[in-house]
Structure formats: C-alpha cells, structure tokens
C-alpha cells in the first residue's frame, strides 16, 4: 500500500513541478490571451516567424501554430475552432458554404508570394531552360518520357530521374494544376516525398535528375543545385524575388493567404497579431518567400482597422 501511495506522490510531484515551471512568465506587456492558428505547411514558416517575433514583443500572448494543410486547417477554421487559417490557395466554395452554415465571417488577407522552382543537378550543363509544354510532356500521367533525349533532341541519351512532392502536398496540387491543367494529375513513377529534404538530397546526388518544389527550399539550398528558367511563351524566366513579385515568373508563382475570423479579430490580441503580421512583411522574405507590393499590406491594414475595438 505504501508503494501505491509513493506512486501517487511521484505523479503529483511531476504535476507540481510542471506547474512551477509555468510561473516564470515575465511581467511586461499588457496584452494577453491566445491566438490559435492552423493550416498550410507552405505558409507555416512565415506565420511561425511572425508568431516568434510577436511573442518576444508581447510575452503574455500565447500563439499556437499547427500544420494540418490548407484543407485540414479550413475544416477547423470553418467551425470556429481556430482564429486564423494559413492557406496556400483561396478558400473553396464548399468551405465558404461551411462558414455560412456556422455563421463565421472572415477576411482574406494575401501575405506573400510563393514560387515553384524546377531544379536539376549542379553538373547538368545541357538544360538552359524548359517550356511549359516540355514540363507537361515530362510530368503528365502515363508520360512516355524516360530519357533526356526524348525531351529535346541533342540532350543526353540518359535516363531522366524525377523527384517531386507527394500527393498530400499543396505544392503538388499547384504544380499539376498549372502545368498539366488538372489538379492531382501526374505520372506516378517518380521519387515522391512530402519531405523536401529527401528531394534536395536526391537531386544533389544524381547528375541526370530533375525535380520541383517550393521556391523557399531552393533558396535555402541554392548552392547545392541549379534552377531551370521556365518559358511560358515570353522567353525563359528565372525565378527570383523580382520576377515572382512582378508576375513575370508565371504561371509558377502564387499568392499565399491568411484567413482571419472577424469575430476573433475583435479580440485585441488577435488584432495586434494580424497588424504585426502586416507590418513585418520582411519576415516573409527572411524565410524565403517574396513580399507583396507595399500597398497590398496597407490595404490589409485598412481592412482590419474596422474591427479594432
């Protein structure tokens, strides 16, 4: 019996100890409360950076950021479980219907641009650019292309090794929609991974590889691979902060959004967080995305101003 008591004392001790750890919250900063965020893994790095800086400035506010994917996040957002949803695509009609059902009003705020990068191995010296048609021929379902020489005459008669994100990824949806013309339609005999690191390593280690992923990952690993300029009819364009921002790197660049529940926005901690988000656009650039023109952030700030209490 004593041992049983001992066990409970231990359990209680753990509880007390953890509770103690909590009391070190410092005193400054008047704002407090919780901001709940979930959604796209593409937008996560930006929101995470903003949340980190915001909590340094307001250390009584608790900001939580999840990564359920854009769709998974909207499932929680549309029933009012979260205050903000990160989204790498605009909200769908079915999701809008859900918000109406649950009496949820929201604001759509663009926060940055994301570009997709098509990359090859560093030692690849034959690819100068790829056209959208060539990309489509390579990646479409049941594609017959197995060798570089089949893409364009004169290229090496070597097997082309393909790397790309898996089907759960927003990047995959986006690429297939823009290049193949149908979301989710892609050949399946390529090395697929949700973990962009796997793709980076695969492309780095194989001279005859070709792959695609988010611009941020390319920027992080610039020196390990070569980016392919894309020709969509107006000549080959290299993805850079500038070409993504001015829209010339089309169609492989897209806007990223946050969706804010307007009821939540009336709470000062949520309002201040969103305001902070718009006033610190350089954070998006810092984590590898492209910032929007300044007037877009100003518009966002005006849009939320009506909800300040």
């Amino acid at each position, binding site marked *: *019996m004593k*041992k*049983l008591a001992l*066990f*409970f004392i231990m*359990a209680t001790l*753990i*509880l007390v*100890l*953890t*509770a103690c*750890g*909590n009391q*070190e*919250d410092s005193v400054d900063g008047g704002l407090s409360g*919780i901001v*709940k965020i*979930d959604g796209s893994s593409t937008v*996560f*790095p930006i*929101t*995470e*950076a903003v*949340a*980190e800086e915001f*909590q340094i400035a307001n250390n009584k506010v*608790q*900001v*939580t*950021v*999840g*990564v*359920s994917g854009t769709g998974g996040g909207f499932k*929680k957002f549309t029933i009012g*479980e979260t205050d903000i949803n990160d989204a790498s695509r605009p909200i769908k009609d079915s999701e809008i219907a859900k918000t109406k059902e649950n009496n949820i009003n929201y604001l759509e705020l663009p926060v940055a641009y994301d570009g997709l990068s098509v990359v090859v191995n560093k030692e690849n010296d034959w690819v100068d650019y790829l056209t959208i048609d060539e990309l489509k021929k390579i990646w479409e379902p049941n594609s017959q292309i197995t060798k570089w020489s089949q893409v364009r005459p004169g290229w090496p008669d070597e097997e082309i090794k393909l790397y790309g994100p898996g089907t759960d990824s927003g990047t995959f949806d986006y690429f297939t929609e823009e290049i193949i013309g149908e979301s989710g339609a892609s050949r399946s005999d390529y090395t697929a991974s*949700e*973990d*962009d*690191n796997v793709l*980076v390593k695969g492309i780095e280690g194989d001279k005859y590889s070709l792959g695609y992923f988010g611009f*941020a*990952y390319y920027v*992080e*690993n610039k020196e390990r691979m070569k980016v392919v300029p894309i020709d969509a009819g107006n000549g080959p364009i290299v993805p850079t902060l500038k070409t993504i921002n001015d829209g010339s790197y089309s169609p492989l660049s897209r806007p990223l959004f946050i969706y804010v529940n307007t009821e939540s926005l009336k709470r000062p901690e949520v309002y201040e967080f969103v305001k902070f988000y718009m006033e610190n656009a350089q954070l998006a650039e810092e*984590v590898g995305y492209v910032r929007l023109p300044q007037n877009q952030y100003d518009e966002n700030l005006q849009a939320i101003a009506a909800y300040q209490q």
Partner: protein
Amino acid sequence: MIRHNGNIKDIEKRRKKNMFYFSLFLFATLFGVITLAVLLVDVFIKGIPWLDWQFLNSFPSRFPERAGIKSAFYGTLWMLGLTAPIAFILGVGTALYLNEYAGDTKLKQILQININNLAGVPSIVYGLLGLGVFVRGFALGRSLIAGSLTMVLLILPIIVVASQEALKSVPSSQRNASYALGATKWQTIRRVVIPAALPNILTGTILALSRAIGETAPLIMIGALTFVAFVPGSPMDSFTVLPIQIFNWTSRPQEDFQYIAAAGIIVLLVVLLSMNGLAIYLRNKYQNKY
C-alpha cells in the same frame, strides 16, 4: 568398418549444421544491436554539440541557434503527469475487477477478448477516437487533458493485461491463508494481493507510459501543435510534445535543424531510459518481499 565411416561423415554434417544455425542466430542478434548502435552513434555525434542549457531552456525558433526544446519538454512532462494517475487507476481497477471479482461468465470472456484485441489497435485509430470523443464530444478542445485522455485509452489495454498477469502470479495459498484468518475479500486484496503484485504492476505501467511518451500519430490527430512558444499552465492549455517537435525539426530545409533534432532525440532517449530504469529499480527492489 563401413558403419564406422558413416558415423564420421554424420558428425561432420551435424557440426556444419550446428555452425550454420549458430551463425544465423548470431547474425540475427547482431543485426538489431548494430543497427541500433549505428543510429545512436549518429544521433549522439550530431546532437551532443547542440545539447546545452540554452537548448533545454529555450522555446522553438526559426533560427537554429535560438531553438530550444522547453515547451515540448514541459508538454511531455504534463502529459505524463496527467496520463499516469488516470491510466493507473483505470487499468489496475479493471484488472482487479476481472481477476478478483468477476465470475467466469460470458461477459468476462467478451471483455477479456476485447481488451486483448485493443492492445493491437493502431495508435492512429485512438487519435481519431480522441478527436471525436474528447476534443469534439466532451468539448475539451485541443488541450493537454484531451491528449492525455487519448493516451490513457492507448495504453490502458497494456496496463490491464500486465496487471492481470501480475495478479495471477500471486499464489492462491496466500489468498487462502488470508481468508482462513477471517479477512474479507477487500482486506485480502488490499493487504495481500496488491502488495505482492505491485512491483509487476508498476513495471507494466511505467513501460506503457514510455510508449505513450514516444507516440506521435494520435497527438497529431487530436491537434497537438507544431509551434508552441510557451509552457502550458493548466490541463486546458494547448501543447506540443517531444516527438512532434523532433518531427517538425527533421522536416526543415536548413541543415542545422537536423542537428537540433538529434539533440531533441537525445533528450527523449534520456527521458525514456530513466523511466525504464525506474521500472527495473522498482521491480528489483520489491520483488522478493514475501
């Protein structure tokens, strides 16, 4: 003569066979051990340089040099503190009922079979159950208590089965002796059966809790979060735990985060090893009490 020759050949053949099986089993043993050793060495080489007080006492960050494991570590401790007592009371209670009170009826057989089956259900299924029942049904939200209750469900079958085995191993002569002295059933259970079975029950419980600490899938399902830069203050708070934080770090592009993840794995290993050590200590200490 001929027969003699045949015998010698036989011996050769049998020796070879003996050698073959010996090598096979040795290989089987070494395979696991060496893989584990390689993994551990890799993790330690990568993680040790990053493992310092700053790492233990900082919140997660997008900068590797600022990133720390504090919120995940406290999240895991909280979960342990909430899961342990609930799982222990429910698990041992169930085992006591099934072993000591329930008659050998159909109902008991059905319960028994179900408990054994539950131990084999994939953990993600418990995550779905937790999402439906605790997060949405009881409206506990994506909180520590919802996560802990889900973990209780996950490890309950293991604790019940381990406790039942422990109770069964108490000799019936001891119970009979207690009854012979005029003790009631509850007195017998409290004074004789539980003290004798407790070391094994505790061992089973602690091992089950170690499993709970390493689980990721059900917690992702119920919404334990990826970026949490505060220590939870009550069971209703949002939280993250060590395995989720480690998973998040390994999926980042910057190479430094792979090392940070290794440092996180070392912390998780230390927690797990100390729990297993505690289990062994308790078992040895109380084993031959009677």
